[in-house]
């Protein structure tokens, strides 16, 4: 099975061959490295940008203005904060120009903790990004969705922010990407750049059968079905929720585990229907808890399904601290861990009315 990084690579390859992608660029995105997480190895339109995040977003906007289609990478979302006004601009161009211009542009950036990344390789970005209007914002939890949402992004006339959980970059999926070779070794041999040798003459041998497999925006996926509570998550923590649901079934507790996949626009009907069924809602993510995107999900659920709720809905999120510290304890005690997720799900399912 392909990893998330390989899924990105294959989707971008499909995009530059079939979807009009003209430029894939960012810091260390071109040869020889192909991205610090290897997401852009072997791509024919990939190039190395100057170390200048504002330059990257601004240039990508200009490429869109001129009829090109860029996929720009910000190496880590921890370094995107100086671009907020440019992201705002990308998102308001269509509205402020009364529809004259659009901004077909994909930005991808690794997010979240889980790799001992310390203060500046651990930030989350979804709460800020979903506050920037005019963008679609997605965060996949597995390689197949990563592929399908990138394909959707590269077809969009609007800017799309693809948040890639960095702890999942090397994680393999459970479902194959249509067209990927059955044999994992073959896939690696075909599309992984060789390590420790000169790559100058290396060229990938892309799988022949890659497809237009598209995950439409705004459509969640119910990953587990159950009766006792609804759990809404995305990205890395979605997997922790699925794992906890499987474990808690031994205690007789079952859950609807909803992978939002798209955060803006998010799939309210699916969340609402599930809350109406279970009467209980827990939202889980790793961003800091104040003005957290999960609070928005809670508010919409309360607006739409208040009288279905049996107990107060809850958010399990990161502590409100300036960063994720490097030492084990800092991450362990500030970012929700598997045990925290399981405990919060059990508590939600068993809370008395």
């Amino acid at each position, binding site marked *: 099975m392909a990893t998330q990084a390989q899924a990105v690579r294959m989707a971008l390859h499909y995009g530059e061959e079939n979807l009009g992608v003209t430029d894939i660029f960012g810091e260390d995105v071109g040869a020889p490295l192909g991205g610090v997480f290897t997401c852009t190895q072997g791509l024919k339109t990939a190039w190395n940008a*100057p170390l200048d995040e504002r330059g990257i977003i601004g240039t990508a906007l200009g490429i869109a203005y001129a009829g090109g289609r860029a996929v720009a990478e910000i190496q880590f979302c921890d370094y995107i904060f100086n671009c907020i006004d440019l992201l705002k601009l990308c998102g308001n161009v*269509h509205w402020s120009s*009364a529809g004259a211009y659009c901004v077909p542009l994909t930005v991808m950036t690794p997010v979240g903790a889980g790799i001992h990344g310390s203060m500046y390789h651990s930030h989350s970005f979804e709460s800020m990004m979903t506050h920037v209007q005019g963008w679609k914002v997605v965060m996949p939890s597995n390689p197949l969705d990563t592929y399908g949402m990138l394909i959707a992004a590269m077809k969009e006339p609007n800017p799309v922010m693809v948040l890639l959980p960095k702890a999942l970059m090397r994680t393999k999926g459970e479902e194959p990407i249509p067209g990927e070779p059955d044999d994992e070794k073959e896939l690696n041999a075909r599309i992984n750049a060789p390590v420790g040798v000169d790559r100058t003459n290396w060229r990938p041998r892309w799988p022949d059968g890659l497809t237009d497999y598209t995950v439409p925006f705004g459509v969640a996926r119910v990953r587990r079905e159950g009766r006792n509570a609804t759990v809404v998550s995305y990205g890395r923590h979605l997997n922790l929720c699925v794992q906890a649901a499987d474990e808690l079934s031994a205690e007789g507790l079952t859950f609807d585990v909803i992978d939002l996949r798209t955060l803006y626009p998010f799939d309210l009907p699916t969340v609402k229907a599930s809350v109406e069924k279970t009467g209980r809602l827990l939202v889980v993510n790793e961003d800091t808890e104040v003005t957290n995107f999960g609070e928005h999900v809670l508010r919409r659920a309360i607006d739409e399904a208040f009288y279905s709720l049996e107990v107060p809905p809850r958010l399990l999120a990161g502590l409100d601290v300036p960063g994720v510290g490097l030492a084990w304890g800092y991450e362990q005690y500030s970012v929700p861990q598997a045990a925290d997720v399981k405990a919060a799900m059990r508590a939600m399912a068993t809370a008395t009315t």
Partner: protein
Amino acid sequence: MAPSDDTAPADARTWGEPVTDALKLRLHDAMVQARLIEETMIRMMRTGHGYFWIGGPGEEAWGVPLGLLVHKGTGPAHDFLHLHYRSSAIVLAMGAQPIDLLRQMRSTVTDPYSMGRNFVNHFAIRHWNIVPVTPTIETQYVSAPGTAWVQRRFGGIGVSIVNGGDAGTAEGDFASCLNWSTRPGQELPVLILIAQNNWGISTPAHQVQSSADLAQRAGGYGIPHRVVDGNDPIATYEALREALAWCRYERKPFCLQGNVARLYGHSSSSGALRHEEPDCVATFEARLVRESTLTEATARAVWDRWQTHIHAALEQVKTEPMPEREHVMLHVLAPAGSQN
């Protein structure tokens, strides 16, 4: 990509027509038009026909020559313009309709640039590659390398032209523009303009910048650069003609600074009062009369003709509708299939 609305390009090396009496008269005519529209908009603000004014009176000699030299059209074969809020003379000299500026000034729903959403002089004209003017200072300098990158790949003679003020060059985006335009072997056809009026709202340039010659910074990146008297439309025209020919033919950047006047202060927030600064329209007109290119009577006629035209446009704009509730959510997201 939509087809161009322009004719076949001329030779890049001799871009633009030479200065003749006929050209001088065109420059004068367009400068008068731009001045009168800005003064009309200041009056509109004072008489309750607009909330806020910001614009370019005093920069006509800087803007009009560029407007006449632009390779106008749609897509990378033509010039892209990344402008700021003092660029009315450029856009009017390109042929924008005065009434459309007045519409944006009054925030009518008929404002073709923003549907009454943005301040005046915030243009967005896709069929001429005028990308949306941003209220954020200097961000236009980071989008310009993007359009130029596409133009470089496309070939042809299209240039990305970026214009802004002096104070804004302190932003990192200005340096980004210089750097992204000069990656070795990947140089970009960007005409980097600086309108030096010696002010950033209330802060004098000498307090915050070590030199009034901002263009020389481009020299550190190997970009040819020069400073021109932006109050002199002929000198500006010649300098722009040369600079544009360089960008078109060499496919490399050029930095040109024009020293200009800020005739009515920063904006209506400082009262939009007339200041004691050089008046490029009056000076140029006097020169043309002195040279007998123009008589005082024909000059008067130019002012009268534009005054009449603008007056009629204003009366029309006063009758036009304002945005209503149903307009608020229009164009938040582009529908599938949209493209530039």
